């Protein structure tokens, strides 16, 4: 049985593409045949995050316009067995694809793949409608900030209105130190507000920047905390119950002292 999962957010820059790359790589590493589709037409990015930018011949628009067969547009990631990418077109805009075309394409991909992961563009316009058209499931990415959570709430409402049921939340860029000193909303705060199920929490991690520089997803880095968190997300997607990591790093002596005296720990 294959599944089409859209990774969306509303607000831009919260980590949709990073999450798509990492979760997709993780699914392939766990033995599931996976294809990633970049639907951010005009602002393609998933190819560079994956390190596959030099291999592009055909793109999503070529496929839906019939300029090539689906097979020709699938870029095989040679590093990971069973991982493929269909890149977005760079010189067109979101209106070059229609929701019905996405449904047809995904139906064809379902024959061949266990998972179809769709990287959604920011916003709630045509690009969003294309990205969710064929989705069985949705992962809504947010950061622990007022604007991102607000937009996530809007997206959750729109997903439900479009019959993409039971979306799951992925909280990205959490900083345990800031949560601890009361300067960042906690996991519970966000869940309380959005009232949806959690699929994962990814810490803010420099390694994400390093791995994006290299075009090697952080999920492959056994020392990366974000990589570990993404591995847990992959296991949850495949139906496993995995406890959520606690990001409480060891507290320094000064911090403990401050706490003892009821001062805000900085």
């Amino acid at each position, binding site marked *: 049985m294959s599944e089409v999962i859209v990774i969306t957010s509303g607000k831009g820059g919260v980590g949709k593409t990073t999450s798509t790359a990492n979760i997709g790589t993780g699914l392939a590493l766990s033995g599931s045949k996976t294809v990633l589709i970049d639907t951010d037409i005009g602002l393609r990015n998933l190819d560079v995050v994956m390190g596959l930018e030099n291999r592009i011949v055909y793109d999503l628009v070529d496929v839906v316009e019939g300029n090539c067969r689906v097979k020709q547009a699938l870029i095989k990631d040679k590093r990971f067995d069973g991982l493929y990418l269909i890149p977005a077109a760079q010189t067109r805009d979101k209106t070059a694809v229609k929701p019905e075309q996405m449904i047809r394409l995904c139906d064809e991909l379902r024959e061949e793949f266990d998972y179809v992961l769709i990287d959604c563009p920011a916003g709630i316009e045509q690009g969003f409608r294309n990205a969710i058209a064929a989705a069985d499931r949705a992962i809504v990415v947010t950061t622990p900030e007022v604007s991102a959570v607000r937009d996530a709430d809007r997206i959750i409402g729109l997903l439900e209105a479009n019959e993409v049921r039971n979306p799951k939340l992925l909280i990205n860029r959490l900083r345990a130190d800031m*949560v601890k000193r*009361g300067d960042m909303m*906690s996991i519970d705060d966000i869940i309380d507000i959005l009232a949806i199920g959690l699929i994962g929490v990814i810490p803010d991690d420099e390694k994400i920047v390093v791995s994006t520089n290299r075009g090697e997803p952080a999920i492959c880095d056994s020392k990366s905390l974000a990589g570990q968190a993404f591995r847990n997300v992959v296991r949850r997607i495949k139906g496993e119950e995995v406890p959520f990591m606690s990001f409480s790093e060891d507290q320094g002596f000064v911090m403990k002292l401050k706490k003892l005296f009821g001062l805000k720990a900085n």
Partner: protein
Amino acid sequence: MLLDLRKIFGRSKSSKDVAKERLKLVLIHDRANVSPQFLEMLKSEIIKVITNYMDVDESALEIQLTKTRSDDGQSVVPALYANIPIKNIRKSGK
């Protein structure tokens, strides 16, 4: 005059609590506005219940979501404001 001890000791509300409070308020408005029918539905349900007890001027009935200070004055909370002109109270209560 009341002294705000929390302010004197520099223990103001944490920024995440402020964020949470603001978010809750803004989402109440967002969620109500996502469907323009929301307030209309609410309005017709309220009229349905209230007309069991009194005659109201349905055309002048006004209802909106606003904010108000909480009882302890510490925070802003969402409020449903309804202005329902009454024409007559039914004697039987039914």
